[in-house]
């Protein structure tokens, strides 16, 4: 796209022949620079652009020099070195003649991209706005589409999906040519927007649109893979991501390696292949931390935290979890900064307009205008400060509300229908009493879940009622393959203590599915409680096959995901009152160090 921009320049050169030769070496270097760049071979590309830079300097040709710098900046960007890339492109901008609009606009757009990658949204916004202003008047449509898309993308990154959608729509109105780069880029971004809004079908449709003209696009295949991941279609996600991973490894395209490694790591994690998951996540993590690619850094550390949690390596899990939390914090500050900047831009434009009008009105009131403008500015600043605080508070509140909603207790549909199936068996088999007994218990359980589903917390008494009903039904499903005991010390005020709704069930479900059902002989599940100084201590102990064997068997994943969600729900519940760690998992071992089961301890902060 950018390699057709060379204008032969014959200034400063005395001999035409030498000019030919000198220019041809420069052009050659530039051509091969871009050739390698498009193949994502950043190092080779860099060498060629380096040659071009030296050549341009020798020829003392500013235009060439700027072209070469711009190329080098892009190569540096592809190599993942964002700071240097931005500096180099800024430098190039200084050497182009001022009337060379096309170059300016293209370079500012790339620059905006470069700034956006490590999360510098303010600079990214500025660059794209400068380019848009330059493109006003005799404007270039292709550039206009790309600039609008870039602006939309920046808004999307700061979470303002409305504005993003608005700018994409504007880009659509420019009617980009189907199958060409601006068209593909636009649909790619729209796909991401739909994905962010969880409109999966529309997202997939947009992504498929951007295949037109470039059916093998790696980025789009990655996006489709990520889309399937969001929908928990792990096989399909793998189908998209794995080939890309294999393709980009040899060419060392770090962005794509990191993106695919994280995706594949998540899949491996969900499918219980923890060894592979650790390997992939660690690769992505080291790439991200070396190159400072913010979003990969964040998602890689989150993934590693989850994996180590599942592996039972509490130390490493905590390390990555903390890292993830702090990155998230920084990210949200970046988002706030971006939002603040976008807001300031709008109010500046407004006060600029007011300023112009009052000047036009009369010169006599110029003094007054200054006062008014000063006042307006003071007000605007006060307003911004106030709003910033406000937005911050509101967003924080909303985030935790949403989190609660997402984590709220749910009943596994498999469980529901399998219970009904078992009850059906008793009816068909004319065991009327048994059928009626289990049907009644099942209805009670469903009723309790329905009644309590909207609540944050219920009394321990109710929680235990639900748990007993649940365990009775599981016993029924598996023909008494296990027994359970619930041990409550005398004097525990179960009706007075508040616990998160349905907090114990997922841990029990996990113990049954991963531990007890694989065991030869009778399974035992023991649940016991202790209460002191506002902390309820719950111990859930099974004599199942243990975590390592369960992982080796590759048992079902959905329940352990339920367990993880529940753990975060518990952490959230505890955080409301006090920041403390809230869960421990141990292997139980006999004298010969043989694993004899698993123990989970929950700490629930619940004052009387």
């Amino acid at each position, binding site marked *: 796209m950018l390699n057709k921009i060379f204008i032969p320049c014959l200034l400063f050169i005395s001999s035409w022949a030498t000019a030919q030769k000198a220019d041809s070496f420069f052009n050659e270097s530039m051509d091969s620079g871009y050739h390698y760049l498009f193949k994502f071979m950043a190092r080779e590309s860099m060498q060629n652009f380096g040659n071009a830079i030296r050549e341009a300097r020798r020829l003392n040709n500013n235009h060439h020099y700027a072209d070469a710098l711009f190329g080098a900046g892009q190569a540096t960007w592809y190599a993942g070195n964002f700071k240097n890339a931005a500096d180099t492109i800024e430098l190039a901008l200084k050497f182009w003649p001022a009337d060379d609009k096309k170059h300016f606009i293209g370079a500012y757009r790339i620059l905006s991209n470069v700034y956006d990658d490590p999360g510098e949204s303010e600079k990214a916004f500025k660059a794209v706005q400068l380019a848009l202003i330059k493109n006003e008047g005799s404007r270039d449509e292709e550039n206009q589409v790309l600039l609008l898309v870039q602006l939309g993308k920046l808004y999307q990154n700061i979470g303002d999906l409305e504005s993003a959608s608005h700018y994409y729509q504007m880009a*659509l109105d420019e*009617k980009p040519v189907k199958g060409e780069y601006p068209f593909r880029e636009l649909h790619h971004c729209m796909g991401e927007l739909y994905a962010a809004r969880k409109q999966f*079908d*529309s997202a*997939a*449709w*947009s992504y*498929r*649109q951007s295949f037109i003209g470039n059916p093998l696009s790696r980025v789009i295949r990655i996006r*489709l893979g990520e889309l*399937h991941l969001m929908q928990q*279609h792990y*096989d*399909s996600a793998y*189908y*998209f991501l794995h080939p890309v991973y294999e393709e980009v490894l040899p060419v060392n395209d770090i962005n794509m390696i990191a993106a695919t490694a994280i995706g594949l790591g998540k899949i491996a994690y969900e499918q219980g292949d923890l060894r592979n998951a650790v390997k992939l996540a660690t690769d992505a993590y080291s790439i991200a931390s070396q190159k400072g690619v913010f979003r990969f850094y964040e998602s890689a550390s989150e993934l590693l935290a989850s994996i180590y949690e599942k592996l039972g390596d509490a130390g490493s899990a905590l390390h990555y979890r903390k890292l993830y939390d702090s990155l998230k914090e920084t990210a949200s500050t970046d988002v706030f900064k971006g939002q603040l900047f976008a807001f300031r831009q709008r109010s500046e434009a407004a006060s600029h307009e007011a300023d112009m009008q009052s000047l036009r009105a009369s010169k006599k009131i110029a003094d007054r205008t200054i006062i008014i403008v000063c006042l307006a500015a003071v007000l605007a600043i006060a307003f911004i400060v106030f709003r910033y605080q406000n937005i911050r508070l509101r967003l924080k509140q909303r985030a935790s509300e949403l989190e609660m909603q997402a984590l709220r207790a749910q009943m596994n*549909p*498999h469980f*529901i*229908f*399998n219970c*009904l*199936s*078992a*009850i*059906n*068996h*008793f009816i*068909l*088999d004319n065991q009327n009493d048994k059928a009626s007994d289990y049907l009644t218990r099942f209805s009670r359980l469903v009723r309790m879940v329905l009644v309590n589903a909207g609540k944050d917390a219920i009394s321990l008494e109710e929680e235990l009622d639900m748990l007993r009903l649940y365990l009775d039904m599981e016993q*029924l*499903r*598996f*023909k008494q393959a296990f027994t359970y005991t619930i041990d409550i010390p005398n004097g525990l005020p179960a009706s007075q203590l508040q616990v998160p709704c349905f907090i114990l069930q997922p841990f029990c479900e996990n113990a049954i*599915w991963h531990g007890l*059902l*694989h065991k030869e002989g009778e399974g035992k599940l023991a649940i016991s409680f202790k209460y002191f100084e506002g902390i309820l201590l719950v111990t859930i102990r099974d004599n199942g096959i243990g975590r390592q064997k369960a992982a080796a*068997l*590759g*048992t*079902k994943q959905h329940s352990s995901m339920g367990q993880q969600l529940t753990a975060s729900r518990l952490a959230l519940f505890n955080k409301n009152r006090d920041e403390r760690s809230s869960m421990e998992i141990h292997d139980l071992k006999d004298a010969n160090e043989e694993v004899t089961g698993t123990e989970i301890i929950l700490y629930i902060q619940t004052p009387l």
Partner: protein
Amino acid sequence: MIRAIVVDDEPYASAALQTLLKKHCPDVVVETACNSALEAERVIIELKPQLVFLDIEMPHRNGFELLEHFMPPSFQVIFTTSYDQYAIKAIRFSALDYLLKPIDPQELKAAIAKVSKPDPNELLTQQLQLLMQTIREPAATGNRIALPTLEGLQMVAIDTILYCIASSNYTTFVMKDKKKLVISRTLKEIEEMLEDHGFLRIHHSHLVNINAIEKYIRGEGGTVLMTDGTELDVSRSRKETLLKTLQIRK
């Protein structure tokens, strides 16, 4: 007589199915029940059943993974599942049979009636291959779908379908090559299968391939002109969705 086995990890679900079979389908003799894919693999090799009732969700290895060991299959398959929307969709796509648990005797009888020829044929292999492909790569381009016609099954590439028209319990498919196929499924069922593949219900009795719309003609609900020159009515209630979809496409 049909020699069958039941594969299900939940003992009572398996028992319920066997009771239902005894009661409603005396032709079917259940030779044994397995509670894991591992056991089933052994039993299938040993007993060579004609029909396998296969639960999809099981620990260790699921029903699909078991099937992969027996391609091409030497037996007919009826899937059983309690809840797995994703798998159900894939199964319907291949026009294979599945039963939802708890099992409805009427559905069970209908499924058994279809297993009239207990010998699996070339077609079943194709259907199962299509199923495996759909499970593995649901978004693959050039997707094909198996359609139960009056004569048998027809494999069709989705992008060659222009539109579908409801006629009570049947649906007429109009194809790119102007051929028409009458399918023994309701338009509602077809819609559920194709809505993720660029098809839109624009009317009580019309389901259209969005890519085959030539243009939209204004009116109360309006009509769409299809690439084969047919004009189809759009109902008032679907107009807005259609326009939105077309706009995004542009």
